[in-house]
Structures are given as structure tokens and as C-alpha cells.
């Protein structure tokens, strides 16, 4: 009885935020199921998809390149200082390879793209919401999920893996640059060590992570934009929420996907 009373009191005090939270979670799940359904049913707006691919992919190349090259460089430097100089060459090469492909390229690229694109999606769709452009789409017999959300989600799924593959190459190159020009490794040996260590699983993990992160970025960008209300301030909040929530989810799902791949 006392326990029941305690629960009741807890609900009394915490009831409203709790109900709000459950409502939000429900709203998000409805949004996700609508998104998935509309991603697989025609019509598909190729033009919108192409625009997103260019925005999200092509224009993200500089930031992805910058973050991954420095990540590869710093890993080479750090791991060298940690190892005895005997056999350092192959150790550094393999540490760079594994950490870049499995973790650094996918996670850092995704966080950068979340900041760039997740925010832009939330701002654009949020503005369309508060200026009634989404209602206008509906009255023009166009489903906003198919016109706005589905092309962005597909773009996220397709573009992030490609970005990460490019990031892999650049990150490994960063490690090579530090290894050869700063630590004085033999270029041919370093490359051979890298190629010896190269395993399909490392690349696959990174690519699967990238696809998951791409989905998260687009989904949170669209969701927060779609539900924004209350003028410019609401759009600002949506933008912040999109970046924060997708960044957190990226880190959580990074763990979950790693667990799925490597815990057996």
C-alpha cells in the first residue's frame, strides 16, 4: 500500500512531464512508421532526392575530408608514442586503419553532417511548416512525407556510406602522411602493413554505421522541422533539437551497432 501511495505521489508530481514524454515518444514512432511507409510507396521525387544528395554529399566533402585527415594524423602520432619503436610501423598502420574505418570516419563524419545538414533540414522544413508551405503542399494534392521526408531519408541512407568510404581513404592517408614524413617510416612498408591488415569487416562495420547515422540525421532533421511551431523561435528550437538529438542518437547507435558486430 505504501508503495502504491508512493507511486501515486510520484505520478502526481511528475505526471505532466511524464505524460508529455510518453506523448513525444509516441509521436516520434508514428512519424517513423509514416516515414518508412512513404519511403517505399510511389511517387518518388527524384529531383528532390538529387538536390539532397548534392547538399548532403558533395558539399559535405570538405568538412568530412578535414575531420578524417586530422583524425588519421592524430591517431598515428598518439599510437606511435604509445608503442615501443620496434615494429612500430605495422602497429601504427593497423591502429590507424582500424580506428579510422570502424570508428572515427563514421562517427566524426556523421557528427559533422548532423551539424551541417540535420540543422539545415530542420530549419528548411520548420520554416515550411510555420509559413504554411506544408499545408500548401497538401492542398496541392502532394503528400509532404513523400515530397519532403522520403527524399531526405533516402539521401541520408545513400550518401553517408559514400562519404564514410571517402573519409576512410582520407583518414588512412592522414596516418600515412604523419607516419612517413614525421615518424620516418618507410612508405612501401607502411602501405604493405596497411594492406595486410585490411579486412572487409572493418569497412562493412563503418558503412553499416554510416547508413544508420544517415537515417538518424535525416529523420531527426525532418521530424523536428515537421513538428515545429510558433514562428521563427520555434524553428530555431527545432534546429537545435535536431542537432542535439541526432548527435546523441549517433553515439548511442554507434555502441549498439558495434555490439552487434563484435560481441560474439
Amino acid at each position, binding site marked *: 500500500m505504501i508503495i502504491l501511495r508512493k507511486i501515486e505521489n510520484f505520478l502526481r508530481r511528475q505526471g505532466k512531464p511524464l505524460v508529455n514524454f510518453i506523448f513525444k515518444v509516441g509521436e516520434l514512432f508514428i512519424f517513423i512508421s509514416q516515414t518508412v511507409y512513404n519511403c517505399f510507396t510511389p511517387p518518388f521525387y527524384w529531383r528532390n532526392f538529387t*538536390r539532397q544528395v548534392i547538399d548532403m554529399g558533395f558539399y559535405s566533402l570538405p568538412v568530412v575530408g578535414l575531420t578524417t585527415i586530422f583524425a588519421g594524423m592524430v591517431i598515428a602520432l598518439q599510437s606511435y608514442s604509445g608503442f615501443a619503436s620496434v615494429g612500430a610501423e605495422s602497429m601504427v598502420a593497423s591502429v590507424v586503419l582500424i580506428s579510422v574505418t570502424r570508428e572515427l570516419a563514421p562517427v566524426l563524419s556523421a557528427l559533422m553532417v548532423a551539424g551541417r545538414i540535420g540543422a539545415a533540414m530542420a530549419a*528548411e522544413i520548420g520554416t*515550411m511548416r510555420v509559413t*504554411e508551405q506544408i499545408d500548401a503542399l497538401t492542398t496541392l494534392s502532394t503528400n509532404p512525407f513523400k515530397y519532403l521526408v522520403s527524399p531526405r531519408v533516402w539521401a541520408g541512407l545513400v550518401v553517408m556510406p559514400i562519404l564514410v568510404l571517402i573519409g576512410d581513404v582520407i583518414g588512412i592517408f592522414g596516418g600515412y602522411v604523419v607516419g612517413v614524413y614525421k615518424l620516418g617510416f618507410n612508405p612501401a612498408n607502411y602501405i604493405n602493413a596497411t594492406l595486410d591488415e585490411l579486412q572487409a569487416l572493418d569497412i562493412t562495420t563503418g558503412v553499416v554505421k554510416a547508413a544508420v547515422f544517415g537515417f538518424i540525421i535525416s529523420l531527426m532533421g525532418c521530424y523536428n522541422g515537421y513538428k515545429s511551431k510558433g514562428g521563427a523561435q520555434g524553428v530555431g528550437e527545432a534546429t537545435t533539437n535536431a542537432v542535439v538529438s541526432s548527435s546523441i542518437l549517433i553515439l548511442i547507435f554507434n555502441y549498439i551497432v558495434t555490439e552487434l558486430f563484435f560481441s560474439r
Partner: protein
Amino acid sequence: MSEVKIKLRNVNKSFGKKVVLRNLNLDVYKGESLVVIGGSGTGKSVLIKCIQGLLTPEDGSILVDDQEVVGIEEKDKEALHSKMGMLFQGGALFDSLSVWENVAFDLIENKGYNKKDARNEAIRVLRSVGLDPDVADLSPAELSGGMQKRVGLARAIISRPEIIFFDEPTTGLDPIMADVINDLIVESVKGLGATALTITHDMASARKIADRVAMLYKGEIIWQGTVKDLDKTDNPYVVQFINGRSQGPIKTGV
């Protein structure tokens, strides 16, 4: 004039605790131009969004051509919207598209027009609302408020809808531009033989556009009649509203 095009019965809509429409009843007859007047925040926009299925009332029935809109399925929405056009309060033009692509949106996305025909048709309709073909390739952000309204009007009428909604078509325009828009609305509605539902708090506009006027107050239609009736009525709410007096039964503020 006797056939009912839109029929609302006991429509209730609230947001949380705030009741916006309560047991609202209204008929819009085929081919007429009905103007709903009412103060800011009385739920005029909510009313037309309910009719278009953009918002769902908790209770009541809305029939458009005898088809129920409340609880309409996603797949039936397209057919419903294909006979409706809407001019939004802020224009609601798509920022990512050029002016002509906005106007021709329905033709390209739903009617299978090719680019060239769609563009020609858009330019023709832009002309009919008094816009130069030069604006066709501009982006909506480059236009003045009045021009945006015209583009919004062109987009609303290009598919020759049976029903057109106008959400405060003159708000934010200078009196002369407002009058131009009023003329264009009258012209295009009569030209299409469409049924028009306009919501506004601009009485000059209401008088010009309306066959019939209805007044929305506290979620209900408290008065309706012709424009002539408007000046003869002794309904204190209507009298206060059309004369714009601060003293009277209508209390402003929350």
C-alpha cells in the same frame, strides 16, 4: 444557388483546453461567395483547415459534395484536394521553386504536363492576375507582398478548382493593392464559376467579395446574411464589428 457544396454540422475543434470551434454549423452553397468575418484569433483559419482535412475536428461532420471530410483516409485526400484551391494568408509560396514552378506545381506533379506546356500555362495565368512574364523566373523571396499574393492566387486557380479558399487575402496590403486583389478574386471566382469561401476581418474586402457574409464569434456562427443585410442588422456583435468599435458586447483580449 440552392445546392449545398460544403455543409458543416456541430463541428467542434479545440487545442488542449482551448476551445476554438464549438458546435459550428454552416452551409456554403454551390457557386456563391461566402465571406466569414471575425476578429483575430477567433478560429477562422482553423475553420477552413478543418474543411480541407488539414486539421481534424474532435466531433461533428463536414460534407464537401456529400463526402465526409472528418476522418478522411489519406488516399481519398488527393481527390478532395484536386477540386480545391487555396490562397494562404502569407502566400505560402515554395521558397525552393521559382515563381512559375510554384504556379505550375499541380500541373507538373499531378497532371503530367511537360515542362514547356506547364510554363506556358503558368505564364498565361500569371498574366491573368496582372503579372509580367518577367517575374516567372524570379524566386518568391524577390517579390513584394502584393505580388506574392498574386502568385498565390495564380497557383490557387490554375487547375480550375470547384472550391477556392481565401485566407485573409488583403491582410498586410495597402488599401489600393488590397482593392486590386479583391477585384482579381471576384474576377477569377466568377470566371471559374467556383464556390468561394473567404475569411477576413477587412470589411471593405468582405463587402466587395461577398454574396453572403457569416460572422464567427466564440467558435460559433452568430449571424449570417447578405451584404445588404449587414447594414440593416441590429445584431450588436455585427454592428460593433463592422463599425470597428472598441465598446460593445465583443470583448477583446483573452
